[in-house]
């Protein structure tokens, strides 16, 4: 450490000049000082030749194995490098966090896919115990219930109609889905909604689409077989950014059972009327029974319609889709992970990384200052201890 240089006292300057002259053995040197120099030099401790020879060998060996090149301590191992070691560790930890964040939430392309997949799985798990079976079996069920006179009155006559089979639950499902594509993609998304609905075996109950240059919206009411609802929702969710997704389910088993029972009652009445007609002997009795049979046929027909309507509620889920062209351009994912998605993800990663770097800087900067101060204090203390050791020497 260099201190500020002050001009030397003239007397000191003169004394130093004389000393240098004596050390240089100049003829004009002070004789007393020259004598002192000679005497002090004569008292100079000389090293043992054996020691110098050993040291010479060490130097030739490079103070290590023969041929070893001078090694330089890694920068992070130097006292001043401890700070960089700590900073490096912190940055490595931050890098892990960045990667974790990027991997966990950065994927635009797979975002909707994952989102819809999770919705599907949760929906499936939530409804697995109560959802209807295939639409074919569901559609056949009321018919069987109506025709199987031996079926239990309290059960909606599942396939086989045996009392050991638990009553089949009937669940009506309804979904509200909001899609927010860029305004110029509303028409494409609307077409996609129709296409995916038909692919799922459903139909569009009602629709309205309005588009203009800078905005657009569409509304659909879809009827989709409950058995294909989850797949259909997953496909619909890939058409555009999902603004919201709401699902509801209602158990209509009681309604279905009641309708089936009413149909069974009407059929039983018909059987009874037919038997009575067979026993009728007078024309009046016959005419009365025929009139009641005609009414009964109408009632049976009505009851069948009621039962079929309830069955349809369970078999076909109602899906309301609102498409609002408010999404940002470039948000449309279309399902696959495109180069655009990659760019978006890369930007997101950089965004998160930058944020983390700022936070890390805010944390590390004071630590770096403290570390620098600590290192400076450590160096000063070490110098002080060394100087003290010299002062204490005899």
């Amino acid at each position: 450490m260099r201190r500020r240089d002050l001009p030397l006292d003239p007397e000191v300057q003169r004394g130093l000049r004389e000393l240098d002259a004596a050390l240089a053995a100049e003829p004009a040197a002070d004789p007393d000082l020259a004598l002192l120099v000679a005497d002090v030099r004569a008292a100079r401790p000389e090293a043992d030749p054996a020691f110098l020879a050993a040291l010479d060998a060490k130097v030739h060996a490079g103070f290590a194995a023969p041929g070893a090149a001078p090694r330089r301590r890694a920068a992070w191992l130097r006292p001043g490098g401890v700070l960089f070691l700590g900073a490096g560790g912190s940055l490595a930890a931050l890098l892990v966090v960045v990667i974790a964040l990027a991997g966990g939430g950065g994927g635009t392309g797979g975002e909707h896919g994952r989102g819809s997949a999770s919705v599907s799985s949760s929906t499936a798990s939530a409804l697995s115990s109560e959802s209807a079976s295939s639409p074919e079996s569901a559609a056949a069920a009321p018919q069987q219930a109506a025709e199987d006179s031996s079926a239990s009155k309290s059960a909606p006559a599942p396939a086989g109609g045996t009392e050991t089979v638990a009553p089949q639950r009937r669940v009506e499902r309804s979904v509200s889905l909001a899609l927010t594509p860029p305004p110029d993609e509303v028409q494409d998304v609307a077409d996609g909604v129709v296409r995916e609905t038909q692919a799922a075996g459903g139909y569009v109950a009602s629709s309205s689409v309005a588009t203009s240059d800078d905005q657009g919206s569409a509304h659909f009411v879809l009827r989709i077989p409950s058995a294909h609802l989850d797949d259909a929702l997953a496909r619909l969710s890939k058409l555009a950014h999902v603004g919201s997704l709401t699902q509801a389910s209602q158990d209509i088993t009681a309604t279905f059972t009641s309708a089936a029972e009413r149909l069974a009652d009407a059929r039983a009445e018909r059987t009874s009327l037919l038997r009575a007609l067979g026993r009728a002997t007078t024309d009046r009795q016959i005419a009365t029974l025929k009139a009641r049979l005609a009414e009964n046929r109408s009632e049976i027909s009505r009851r069948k319609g009621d039962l079929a309507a309830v069955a349809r509620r369970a078999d076909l889920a109602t899906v309301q889709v609102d498409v609002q062209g408010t999404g940002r351009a470039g948000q449309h994912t279309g399902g696959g992970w495109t180069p655009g998605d990659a760019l978006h993800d890369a930007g997101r990663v950089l965004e998160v990384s930058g944020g983390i770097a700022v936070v890390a800087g805010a944390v590390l900067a004071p630590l770096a200052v403290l570390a620098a101060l600590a290192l400076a204090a450590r160096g000063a203390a070490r110098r002080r201890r060394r100087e003290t050791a010299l002062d204490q020497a005899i």
Partner: protein
Amino acid sequence: MELSTTEPTNARFDALYRENASDVFAYAMTLLRDRAAAEDVTAAAFERAYRRQASYDARRGTRRAWLFGIARNAALDELRRRRRSAALLVDPEDASGAGSSGDDGGEAAVRRAAVRAALAGLDPRDRELVALKFHAGLSNAEIARVLGVSESNAGTRVHRAVTRLRKACHAPS
């Protein structure tokens, strides 16, 4: 002293070693006043210098000054570690050598014994300065670099140390 270097590991370091090995030892010996410790410190200083060659910065002084700075730290570390100063006030070998190097017999021997005694009685810091100036032949700028002080401060210290040494030499025993 001539040191043989048949196969230098590093030309520049080898030259530094050859030119300064004896001076570093003399300096360490003056500080520690213990031959074994001085040898250890000399070896440690050159080993440290060898391993830290890359840390030398020519803008901060000569290579010699850098080497003696390392030697000084090693010597002071030795003093700290051992928690004792050198036990020998006068090195027997040096004492025996003094007589043989005299130029005019008894008078020189007496004079040099007085110088040796004066050196032994000096403050360690003054003794260090004498060693750096007389034994190692460092300039005031180099001494300043070794001690970590300004050049004028180093010059003043050297002047005072020599003045005290001269007084001690002329003081009645």
